[in-house]
């Protein structure tokens, strides 16, 4: 079974703190994604990566950055967390081996106080 693991399920951070959200997949997938989910807004794409060290902005990249130093790991970074970044963050991955299936992690609930 493909696993997309988000190591931090629940975090509480203070305004201005630097926050790292980690996502690891175990199927050698090329593509990895970070989405943010807010009530009434659905899921919105923050950043995605199609290869190691490659990244592309999604629809709402402001206030975020990403890192992909290894193929299996895609990190979302909030350089200086703000209260409007309180949200649920979902990581996803896809690769040639998965056909059309896109796999999602369990989600990370971030509260910024």
């Amino acid at each position, binding site marked *: 079974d493909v696993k997309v693991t988000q190591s931090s399920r629940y975090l509480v951070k203070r305004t201005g703190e630097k926050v790292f959200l980690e996502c690891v997949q175990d199927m050698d997938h090329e593509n990895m994604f970070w989405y943010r989910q807010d009530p009434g807004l*659905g899921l919105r794409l923050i950043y995605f990566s199609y290869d190691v060290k490659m990244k592309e902005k999604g629809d709402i990249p402001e206030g975020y950055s990403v890192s992909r130093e290894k193929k299996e790991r895609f990190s979302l970074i909030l350089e200086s967390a703000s209260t409007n970044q309180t949200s649920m963050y979902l990581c996803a991955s896809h690769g040639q081996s998965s056909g*059309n299936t*896109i796999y999602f992690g*369990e989600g990370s609930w971030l509260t910024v106080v």
Partner: protein
Amino acid sequence: ELKVEQNPLFLSMQEGKNYTIYCNYSTTSDRLYWYRQDPGKSLESLFVLLSNGAVKQEGRLMASLDTKARLSTLHITAAVHDLSATYFCAVVESGAGSYQLTFGKGTKLSVIP
């Protein structure tokens, strides 16, 4: 810019009844996905629709795709309480080889005994 609209956004229905959720999208698409989300949980993949006229069924749920009308439907037959969840459609734009998804805002379904 690809836009995905779902309706209704909220749906309360009695057990045993039938209903349809609609998903319209604004540009040509290679793939359309339906997901289910339970409260506090991640996304569960229901269907992937790839071509015009595609129809897929699983239990009481049936999804169809009309690429000419840019419309997908998720039909619920004889609803049961266990189907209560939020349902999302998501679209991959044609030519977007990276499998990035654009989501609708979701339909929150409540099935009342």
